[in-house]
Each structure stands twice: as C-alpha cells, then as structure tokens.
C-alpha cells in the first residue's frame, strides 16, 4: 500500500475528489495547512504596521491506496489540481506497512 499525500490549492479540493473517486478510491483525509514555497504571499497592514504573510492557505489530502493503483492516482490528482499557475502544490508517495479498519478490524487491502 502507498500513502499519497497531495498539497493543493483549496478551491481544487472538489475536482481532486471527483477525479480519484472515479478510480475507486473510497476514502481520504483532508487537512487545512499553510504552505510556504515559490508562490509569494501578501502583505497585511494593521494601523500602518506591515506584516509579510508568506504562508498561504493550502489543503493537504492523504489517501492510502493499494500499490497497483498508486501511480494512476498520482497522475489523476496532479492533473485535477493543476491550474498551471505557481503554487499548485506537490504530490508525495510513501510506503505504508499496514492498515486496519477500526470498525471491523479488517486489515491491509480490505481496510481501505
């Protein structure tokens, strides 16, 4: 099994979700994060004092999927999340050793 972790622009969440659902991915976990990277932030001004905010709002999606479909999922995610503008984000893949579905105790492939 692989864990696919994608950092994307927030308004792309629904597109990515539909894209991977069509591949049979049945679950995912989403976190609001702040990203720092090449995309530059904005200035905020409070009573004349300026602050540079270089952390931008992003969404992190985590999905654990079987190794077979991992590559396909990565491609689908990347294409669904693409706008072509800087700050589109990244997809990372890591190995997962085991998985358990809490409700039933099923493990590994069956747990996803």
């Amino acid at each position, binding site marked *: 099994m692989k864990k696919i972790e994608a950092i994307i622009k927030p*308004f792309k969440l629904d597109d990515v979700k539909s894209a991977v659902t069509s591949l049979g991915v049945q679950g995912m976990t989403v976190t609001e994060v702040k990203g720092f990277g090449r995309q530059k932030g*904005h200035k*905020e001004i409070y009573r004349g004092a300026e602050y540079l905010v270089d952390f931008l709002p992003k969404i992190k999606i985590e999905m654990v999927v079987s190794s077979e479909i991992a590559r396909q999922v990565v491609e689908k995610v990347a294409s669904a999340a693409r706008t072509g503008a800087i700050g589109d984000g990244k997809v990372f893949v890591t190995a997962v050793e085991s998985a358990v579905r809490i409700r039933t105790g099923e493990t590994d492939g069956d747990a996803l």
Partner: protein
Amino acid sequence: MNAADTAWVMASSALVLLMTPGLAMFYGGMTRAKNVLSTMMHSFFLMGLASVVWLFWGFSLSFAQGNWFVGSLEHFALTGVGADLWPETKIPGSTYMIFQCMFAIITPALISGAFAERMKFSSFIVFTLLWLTFVYAPICHWIWGGGFLQKMGALDFAGGAVVHINSGVAALACAFMVGKRKGYGTLPMTPHNLTLTLLGAGLLWFGWFGFNAGSALAANESASNAFVVTHMATSTAAISWVLAEWIIRGKPTTLGVASGAVAGLVAITPAAGFVGPVSSVIVGGVAGVLCYLAVLAKSRLGYDDALDVVGIHGVGGSWGAIATGLFAAKAIGGADGLFFGNPAQLGIQIVSVLATIGYSFMVSLVILSVVKAIMGLRVTEEEEVAGVDTSVHGEAAYNL
C-alpha cells in the same frame, strides 16, 4: 421645541445609526471568511461618506424647497438648519436633519450586499457618491421633501420606497453590471459565521424601532402604533419564513429566522404609521413567505445578488408599499386603503412603486456604466480568488 419629541428623535437617530453596523454584521457573516472585512467595510465606510455628502448637499437636495423632482442647494452645508424648529414638527431642524442622515447611510449600505465579494473599492466609492446624489436625493424628495409623489398622496411612513425598493432595485442593476462571483453556482459559497449574522439581525430589529417609530417625529400615539406594528410584523415574518422553508426544504434554519425578521421589518416600513396590529400580522406573514420564495427564485433567474438584496428589500419593500394601499386605516394614520373602502390609495401606491423602480433602475444602470467605462467595477480575478480582504485591504479577519 418639545423636549420629549426631541429626545425621542435623537434616541431614534442613534438607533438608526446602529443599524448600519448591524447590517455589516448581518452581511459579513454570510460571506466567505476571505471577504468578510471588505463586506463590512462597505457599511462602515458609508457611515463616513454618506454623512459628509448629506451635510454638504444631500440633505439640501432632498429636503430644501425645490421643484416636483428635486430640492435645491438652499441648505447647502446645512445653512439654515439648526436650532429652529423644522416645519410641521416640534423638533429642531438639526435633529430632523441628523435623523434623515441615518437613512442616507443605510440605503447605499443595503445595496452593497449585491456586489459583495468582488466589487472594486474605489469604484464602490465613486458609484455611491453619484448614486446618493442622482438617485437617493431625488427619490427622497419625491416622497418626503415635497415632490410629486408626496403631492399625489403616496404613503411611505418610514421608507418602503425611498430606502427599500430603491436599494433593492439598484442592487439588481449592480448584480447585472458587476457580474457573478467566480465559481458562483459550482463552488459552495456558504456563510462563514452565522453567529455574526444573527447578531446583526438582532441589532437591525432593535435599531428599526428608531427607523419606524422615530419616523413619527414625535413621542406620540402614532409612534407607539408604529412601534407595535413594526414588532408584530417582524415577529410574524420571522415565523412564516421558517415555516415556509421547513415545509419546502425540511429544515427550520437560523438564517431563515434572521432573514424572515428582516423581510418583515422591510415590509412594515412604509405601512408602520397607517395600519393596525392585526393587519401588521398579515403584512409580516406574507412578507416572510414571499421573500423566501423570491430568494429561492434567484437561482433560477441566474443573476448573482450575493446577499439577496433584491429578494428581501426589493420584493419586501414593494409588497409593503402595496400593502399600505390595502390595509391603511383612517383611525390609525388618517388615510384609508382598499380594504377600508378607498381603492384609489392602492393606485397611488402602485404608481409610487413603479416610479421608484423605473427611475432607480435606469439611473443606477447609467451610473454603473459610466463607472465601469472609466475605472472598471471588479477586482481582478487573482484578487477575487485570494480574497478581497487581503488583496484590497491588506488585512485578514481572523488569526485565531
């Protein structure tokens, strides 16, 4: 000078002033978190801008003696408006002026709900300056300043046409000219903080007692009646909106109770000095359902009136003006409506509605076209996606 009347109209002026921050909360809670400040800014900046316009030429164009269409510059910079009694009242001219000033603030603030989350701030300022001068002042003059609708006998106790139809129709023009928000209809655009919206609705209800009962310009029986019917119509509309949505969509919502209350407040505004409490229950009950349906219809009609100014103020205000022609009773306010044997009043009311709609819509369109041609109306797409708060105002509402 009558001290009690003056005390009451001053207290009412303060109450009406508070409605604009109340509106800022009501509107701000309904936007997405990235645009709440820009939305509230519309209301707060207008508390400044509209007042200065009012002081210099707005009040004079509205209320100084003029012709059938507009006042004059006789009271420019409040010349001659001070401690002397305002004609036909027992309150100082300055008290009358400041009470009316609060109405000139909230009317353009109401419009701003239509173009929330995408309007360019500088264009908003220019639009408002022109709109107060060329739309608000004339219509105010028509109905309250001695203009043709007043001469015809149109009844508008506290601003059904001047404030609500007027702002609702201008909002429609804005929705057309400014265009839809990016992602409208596909992205979820859910209210980001409904506690703020409920707070705003509470402040509006509270302040509206000044708006309507203050419009008697005296602490008398008419004010007391206006107070009572304002409260009862609002109560009923709050319930009827919730019941309508409960039946149609299956859930009674807090945004519904807040919206229904505002719909009731709007609808009773023109009628407040002319109808009795049982009539007010009908006015409010109908308003809650009607405005709910109008808001539902919006998605079909395909314009993006972001915070439903048309559905609530345009539709609610029109219903209120017509209802005044139906339910007015001589025993209450000196004039009878259709149900009390005077069908002519209904006709006059319809004329006032149509005149307001026609003029406000056309002239708002012209102003918007001019502003659009010169400086554009919208922020850039990038600014809109990032959120107007940080990109235009350089601020984020929340750093929790």
